[in-house]
């Protein structure tokens, strides 16, 4: 109910909608961004960027294609990763004074698409809990300590599970074990 109200207000460009977005979904945005950016100021700037982006691109959100929180977390995560990359880029420029061309070639783009499809298939064969754990680590870039704290378990247990998940994925991606779900 609240989700639909916020989306409606954003689409109708109501003045209070950005505030409401920040009030109700600020913790979620900070949660996603906080796992990627370590500096408090960078995080807050990134949250503001995310709110701005949601405000601008709310027209592109389609509830039929995906969930609202999924859409928000994708925006927050991508903005945080971009910020992290740009910061890393600045550092490497300062160090090496070299700039590499990051735009992928058509072959690289095709290869990447194939890799994404293969990984998607492999992830589909994992158990739901394992898939979520994988996304936490590799998509949301959460630390093992954060994952362990949220799952109420030990870092060692998380590391062990991640190790087993990776081993399974390696087998699936290398074309082995054509069975059903793991």
């Amino acid at each position, binding site marked *: 109910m609240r989700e639909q109200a916020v989306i409606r207000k954003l689409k109708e460009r109501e003045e209070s909608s950005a505030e409401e977005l920040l009030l109700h979904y600020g*913790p979620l945005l900070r949660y996603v961004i906080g796992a990627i950016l370590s500096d408090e100021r960078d995080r807050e700037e990134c949250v503001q960027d995310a709110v701005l982006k949601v405000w601008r691109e709310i027209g592109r959100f389609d509830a039929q294609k995906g969930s609202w929180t*999924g859409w928000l977390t*994708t925006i927050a995560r991508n903005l945080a990763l971009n910020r992290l990359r740009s910061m890393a880029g600045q550092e490497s420029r300062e160090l090496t004074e070299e700039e590499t061309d990051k735009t992928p070639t058509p072959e690289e783009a095709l290869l*990447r698409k194939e890799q994404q499809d293969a*990984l998607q298939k492999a992830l589909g064969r994992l158990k739901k809990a394992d898939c979520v754990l994988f996304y936490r680590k*590799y998509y949301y870039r959460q630390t093992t300590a954060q994952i362990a704290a949220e799952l*109420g378990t030990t870092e060692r247990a998380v590391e062990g599970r991640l190790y087993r998940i990776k081993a399974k994925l390696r087998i699936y991606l290398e074309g082995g074990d054509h069975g059903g779900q793991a």
Partner: protein
Amino acid sequence: MADKRDLFEENSSREARDDAFDALLMDSLPPEADPSVSSSIAPGRQGMLFILISVALGLLTLHFLYLDLILPVISYGLGLLGWHRLKEANGSFRRGWTLQLVRTVLYLFFLFQQMSVWTMEEILTKVGYAAFGWVCTLLLMAQLYFLRQGIREVQRKAGQPEDTKAVNALIAEIAVLCVLGFLDVRGLLALIMIIVLIVCLKNLFKLTGALNEAGYALSGRPARIRPAVLLGIYAVLVLLVCALAPRSYPMQWQERQKVQQSAALAVAADLKAKGFPDEVMQDLTEEDLLSCEGAVSVMKYRSEVSTPDLDGLLLQAVAVVLDEGRGLGGAPRVWRIFYHFSLPDRDHGRGTEALEIPETLFRPFGGEDCVTETPCGWIFHEEKGKTVTAPISGIERKHYTTSPDLFGTYYTYDSWFAGFSLSSDCRRVRGYVALTVQDAYGEIDFSWDNAEPRIQDRYGTSSLCYIHQLRSLQFPVLSAVTWKTSGIQGEAFENIRLYGYFFPEQ
């Protein structure tokens, strides 16, 4: 040296391969996460859910399919998991976790009692049991308070307005439920209790969303033990408690000593001459024989009852008149009465059995208690060609009330109960309970002329009962005595009525 270098190189190359695989995985991830994955990542939600399911299960008391055992065990397990998951988030949740540990220990103690033949009053005394109930209730209320405070702290940290209406309502409703529970309400008030319970469950459902938005502000440290280990420890403790709780009375079996004292033998000969049944006399101890010295006359009654599970339960009631007295205002009449029973051979090791001797047998018209001293009793059986015996310890008088309906109809009884346990391989089991009965007013009349109308008019209150355990599997575990006196309905026991009235020998 070369080996070490090879190992180092192998490790380095493995790490390099792992790093490359990690990089490949990160590069290959789709730009958008699966919607089901993003909705699954909600810190605090699962912990909160576990706690609330735990509270809901704790509120339900269902006396069928062993749900009164299964639901609380699951409830405390989920409570442990839920609080363990939230405990690092803030101080209030940590205090809630500490209380969960204390509550779990108290529950394990309660479970031990529920799995044993001892009642809570026997373990803790009546006052102690009441205090235990209040402590458990207060701990639950304190825990809910810390849940409320914990939610507030998380909401404050997330920059959201504090909203604890649902948890406040829940605390108030549970307080009402506890008060109604302690008052042991019946009738219409019980309906109110059910309504409050339904409202409680509705509020619990509302509360599951309390940390949906603010929960992302939860942060903490990794746990020191894994949830599976925590659950494993809990499961082991539950199993240990269930396994160690005694389901039968400890009986001090020893080989039976033959009566050798000449005075006792002389009394036995005198009793036999007066018609004392031989099968009963053979089991009497020296002390009990001597207690019948100077017997005036003997009255006896023999009754055999069969039930589907106990084919041929034999009761012999023998009253030895010790003093005829001098009637009203004079010396009281005194009897030494023996209730002797023998059981057919079968598997007796199911838990506990009991003999109930209602006082209405001796004081049919009310008045003062007439059993002058604490009764004593013995159980016998044959083992490897020898007769072994054990005293029936703790023969006690119980004043109890039963209520066959929810609308406040009560029946009260005063009876002497002799509870005992037998082992599976017992053969030729028999026993007796001996009482000394005194009648200062000349009112007691054991004769059939008096007994017959009493059987007709007071059926159910003045019959001797043998309480027999039908099956060993039961929860809560009850002794035969508790089963009879608590009025708890259940199929683990059967109540076999026997008539203990006497005919004068002459």
